């Protein structure tokens, strides 16, 4: 590794590793690092409590009859003492001083030898009109989920905005519990950007069969309080519906503000190299806030990957680098599970920009194949989701 005497003079090597954010990315980095190094101090900053929970469980928690507090698997202070980190809760980061290697927060200054940005992403809010637009909620954290559950009284009519992965999982979860569920999306079918049309249609039919009402090829124009009860939603196609709860699930936007203000290069996310270092020395990023390097993605375009599996892979590599062994992340094939219980789906999508096409090789099993018959992606539908490991072995590995 390159050493720079001038840099080292400034750099307080005795300072702790500082991690901003205590979601899966933050905690995974701390846990993986602790496996390699039991003495180096780790300080973690969070604007919340730092509770560790399984985030993918939020979108199917209802069917499991779980309240928000029941989704916490380990309370913040407990995991902090188990892993051996100093957890600083309810603390808002104001700015990073990259010259002095300090982070200014609402609770004072924190020095770092290495800084990890695990700041996650926030829900995208769509522009809508009307006096009730503030009623539109997103669920991207445990606290959001608690708010959502409070609003969801027995017999509530729910509108889900967005027929992507999270929208479909919530639709399945709520319709399965007897709620009246509407889904609105400008596309022609659910998950249409990810799935072949025939499978999108299958999912549409499966969710319809448990009562989900689709409003496709349109979008919400206005949300106004109804004179009697709930809210009146008007769609661009002229239709309208009266609902009690509106859940927006239209995607995530990386939290890049403090990185950007600190001078780190940001695009759709915080731009990192193959070792997860940002454009600034000693500052690293991983998770939903990060735009991973093309090199780690088999040469396909640099992009964000807001899923669980990339975080686990990134945390392992980053722990090595933080411990002094410069390590590049290598992402394996990472299938995504769509937990729609009425029609579960597992997809290992081809890299963006790949030339090829989907075909159903047997019922419920699809392959994405290029002109040389190489399998570059797969899709498993319904009972076939159990064949994940088998399919992964048949994939052409990313090189």
């Amino acid at each position, binding site marked *: 590794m390159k050493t720079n005497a001038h840099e080292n003079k400034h750099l307080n090597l005795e300072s702790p590793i500082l991690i901003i954010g205590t979601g*899966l990315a933050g905690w995974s980095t701390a846990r993986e690092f602790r496996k390699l190094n039991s003495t180096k101090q780790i300080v973690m900053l969070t604007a919340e409590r730092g509770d560790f929970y*399984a985030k993918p469980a939020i979108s199917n928690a209802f069917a499991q009859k779980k309240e928000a507090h029941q989704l916490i698997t380990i309370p913040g202070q407990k995991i902090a003492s188990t892993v051996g980190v100093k957890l600083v809760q309810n603390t808002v980061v104001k700015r990073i001083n990259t010259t002095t290697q300090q982070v200014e927060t609402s609770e004072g200054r924190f020095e770092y030898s290495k800084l990890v940005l695990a700041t996650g992403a926030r829900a995208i809010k769509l522009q809508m009109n009307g006096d009730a637009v503030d009623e539109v909620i997103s669920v991207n954290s445990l606290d959001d989920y608690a708010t959502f559950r409070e609003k969801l009284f027995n017999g509530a009519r729910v509108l889900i905005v967005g027929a992507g992965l999270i929208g479909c999982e919530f639709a399945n979860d709520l319709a399965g519990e007897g709620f009246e569920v509407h889904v609105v999306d400008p596309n022609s079918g659910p998950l249409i950007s990810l799935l072949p049309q025939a499978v999108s249609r299958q999912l549409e039919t499966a969710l319809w069969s448990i009562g989900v009402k689709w409003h496709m090829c349109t979008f919400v124009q206005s949300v106004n309080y109804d004179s009697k009860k709930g809210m009146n939603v008007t769609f661009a196609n002229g239709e309208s519906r009266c609902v009690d709860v509106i859940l927006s699930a239209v995607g995530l936007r990386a939290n890049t503000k403090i990185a950007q203000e600190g001078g780190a290069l940001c695009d759709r996310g915080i731009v990192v190299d193959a070792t997860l270092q940002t454009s600034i020395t000693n500052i690293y990023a991983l998770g939903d806030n990060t735009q991973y390097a093309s090199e780690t993605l088999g040469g396909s375009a640099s992009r964000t990957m807001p899923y669980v599996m990339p975080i686990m892979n990134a945390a392992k590599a980053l722990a090595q680098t933080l411990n002094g062994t410069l390590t590049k992340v290598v992402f394996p094939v990472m299938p995504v599970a769509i937990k729609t219980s009425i029609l579960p789906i597992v997809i290992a999508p081809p890299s963006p920009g790949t030339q090829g096409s989907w075909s159903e090789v047997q019922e419920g099993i699809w392959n994405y194949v290029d002109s040389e018959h190489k399998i570059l992606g797969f899709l498993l539908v319904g009972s076939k989701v*159990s064949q994940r*490991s*088998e399919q992964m072995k048949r994939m052409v590995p990313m090189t």
Partner: protein
Amino acid sequence: MNNTAFKTYICIVCSFVYDEAVGRPEDNIPPGTKWADIPQSWTCPDCGVAKADFEVVEI
């Protein structure tokens, strides 16, 4: 078969559930395999956590 002897475990990272009674035949883990008997090389199918890191909660 006495099902009461079987336990169910949940991955704290992604909430994947492993049921000893069901096993994980697609990973060559037959029904009835105890958590302790799963090979160390096995990883969580949903999130990739190694078995050694798999902190489980009995449910």
